[in-house]
């Protein structure tokens, strides 16, 4: 008597509840406070940018899956996170068609042309941001003033620092920067909201401290040295921490699992590299902000950093084989 059909499969027969979906949607959840703050400061335009970015990303994901004849992945959450990160990386006043172009670059060019989820070398949202910044420099640097009623724009604190120097920053308020009441991309503004989200990801163990810590610490150390040398020319490390995309980049973009190293050593080197490049670009580069470029440059080194670890494993084994 065999009342039911038994199925044979591989051990283990219990699996954790973690899935690609749970990872991705938790990242999206962690980004919600920052998104909410940006909508609070910049109003409906910010909301429209966010919705457009997510919808376009998911749409492109769906379309590419169809063309590539792959199982549907548009709802696995990764396109949602990419869209959300893209939105947080652009100004609230960006024309929506540009947002769609950004989503195309992120999903189709950066992700699927490299093989889809898990195979992209560069962070999709960051490539899209840099693509937009180079293609539409004016639109990408027209930062809305928080609570503006008439589409008033202003430069970001880092932009002011770059063009007008320290003297122009006399009215800079650290408290406003912490809460996000400054000009900037959607997600560059409220450090507090971002840290709340990051805390959630640490609690859920979806990110490790190594990358954000080494990234931020090396940025602060490097900018701190120059602040100590000449505080009239160089801004304080705290200023660098609270402005621009450092916190967003360090906790949410550099920690992207796909485009960051696997080993602790790799992660620390990756973080330090990101931090130094960010500081160098901010202090002497042509652009006021360097986080995106820094992460992308370091992304390109990740395969090398991983190979270093794996080659060591191999070499150790080969050595033991020859001595045996």
């Amino acid at each position, binding site marked *: 008597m065999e009342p039911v059909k038994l199925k*044979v499969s591989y051990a283990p027969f219990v699996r*954790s509840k973690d899935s690609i979906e749970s990872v991705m949607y938790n990242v999206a959840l962690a980004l919600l406070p920052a998104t909410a703050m940006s909508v609070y400061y910049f109003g409906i335009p910010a909301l429209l940018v966010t919705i457009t970015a997510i919808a376009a990303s998911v749409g492109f994901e769906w379309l590419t899956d169809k063309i590539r004849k792959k199982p549907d992945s548009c709802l696995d959450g990764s396109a949602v996170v990419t869209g959300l990160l893209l939105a947080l990386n652009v100004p609230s006043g960006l024309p929506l068609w540009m947002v769609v172009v950004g989503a195309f670059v992120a999903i189709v060019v950066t992700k699927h042309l490299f093989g889809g989820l898990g195979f992209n070398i560069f962070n999709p949202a960051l490539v899209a941001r840099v693509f937009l910044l180079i293609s539409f420099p004016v639109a990408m640097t027209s930062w809305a003033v928080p609570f503006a009623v008439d589409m008033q724009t202003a430069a970001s604190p880092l932009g002011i620092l770059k063009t007008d120097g320290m003297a122009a920053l006399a009215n800079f308020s650290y408290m406003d920067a912490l809460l996000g009441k400054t000009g900037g991309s959607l997600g560059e503004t409220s450090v507090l909201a971002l840290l709340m989200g990051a805390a959630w990801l640490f609690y859920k163990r979806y990110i490790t401290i190594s990358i954000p810590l080494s990234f931020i610490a090396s940025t602060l150390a490097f900018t701190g040295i120059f602040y100590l040398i000449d505080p009239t020319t160089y801004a304080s490390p705290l200023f660098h921490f609270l402005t621009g995309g450092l916190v967003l980049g360090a906790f949410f973009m550099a920690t992207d699992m796909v485009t960051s190293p696997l080993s602790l050593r790799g992660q620390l080197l990756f973080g330090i590299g990101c931090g130094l490049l960010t500081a160098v670009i901010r202090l002497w580069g042509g652009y006021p902000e360097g986080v995106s470029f820094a992460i992308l440059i370091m992304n390109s080194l990740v395969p090398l950093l991983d190979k270093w670890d794996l080659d060591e494993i191999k070499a150790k084994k080969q050595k033991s084989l020859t001595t045996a």
Partner: protein
Amino acid sequence: MKTFSIGGIHPPESKLTASKAVENMPLPSEIVVSMSQHLGKPAKPLVKVGEEVKKGQRIGEADGFISAHVHAGTSGKVKSVKSVPHPGGNYSLSVIITTDGEDSWAEGLNTAPIDWKGLTKESIIEKIKDAGIVGMGGAGFPSSVKLSPPPDKTIDTIILNGAECEPFLTADHRVMVESAEEVIKGLEIITSLFQGKAKPFIGIEANKPDAIEAMQKAAKGTGIEIVSLETKYPQGAEKQLINAITGRTIEEGQLPFDKGCLVHNIGTAVAIYDAVCCNRPLVERVLTVSGMEISSARNIRAVIGTRFSSIAAFCGNMSEKTNQVITGGPMMGRSQFTLEVPVTKTTSGILFINNAALETSRERTCIRCGKCIDACPQSLEPWLLGNEAQFRRLDDAELYGLANCTECGSCTFVCPSKRELVHWIKYAKALVNNRKQRKTA
């Protein structure tokens, strides 16, 4: 509290039967005694169809050094000797016995307990060999071989494995609570083989406080140290257990005795006591029948050769939702395609489960989260070994430590992409073995 140093996971413990006393399973009308219940070559059948056998009679002769004798689990008549499904997933030559219900022992067996202290080392090992005792935790390595390490190896640590880190399983747990005396005596017998130079330990996970208490009570004055271990999978894996208790690490290619250690299972210790003191060969064992889909989960003592179908009936049958039946634990066990397979010496449990993920889950691409690396107790890169296996890059896989994988399944448990990592690793190991055999042939 002690634990192994690297990796590990915390799967749901699901010890449904932890407080249920072991029940004796009634004799089935037919038993199927497989000739392959151990690591190594199958035993050679010694009986013919129609022959009468007694309980404990040797019906399979060990074939070679790494092999083990097999005994009839009860008295009856040999119905057939043929190849039938085996819980290992293959077919194996088995002696099928129609039981006569008398359950009468063969002469000279099942005697009143004697004091083992008068026995010589050689006669103890001979008795263990005659009883067909193998490692009852799952691997089934012949115990007499394990207890005779090469003379150049010094054993200074003997560990009894009461970790039972697999979810659901509670057989060792119950044995420790109910048969503490026998466990201790079994361990004392093992220790005596090393002329008092080895220190005996019993490692028990902290989720079994009653077992720790029972063993501590029974071990008083014997010099046996009861070690409470953190509840973490795979605490009961040989290499991890040695690491937890002694701090030593078994390197790739090494065996426990290379680091002065010897690990035995709780059930094996009891079997050794039975064999040495009572002349009882290994013909029955305690196992856990559990899972969400069996109506009355319990711990049972069953005759080796009892079919899973009889056990399912004894435990109130499985629900219609059952889609998998597993032997062993859910982390390292094997799924069965039929309930006609018998209990063997290494069957620590039978689980009746509804594996819902089976219908919906598919392998996705690696998202490089690194969870498998953190989980691996052998410090491997499971994601990479999985890739190498999928693309059949066997040389690379070996260089990345393929042989060092203990197949505990922790990487596969944690993978958010639901990759069948440990399956791919086992697959690569099988391919490497085939290749080696072809080379030597």
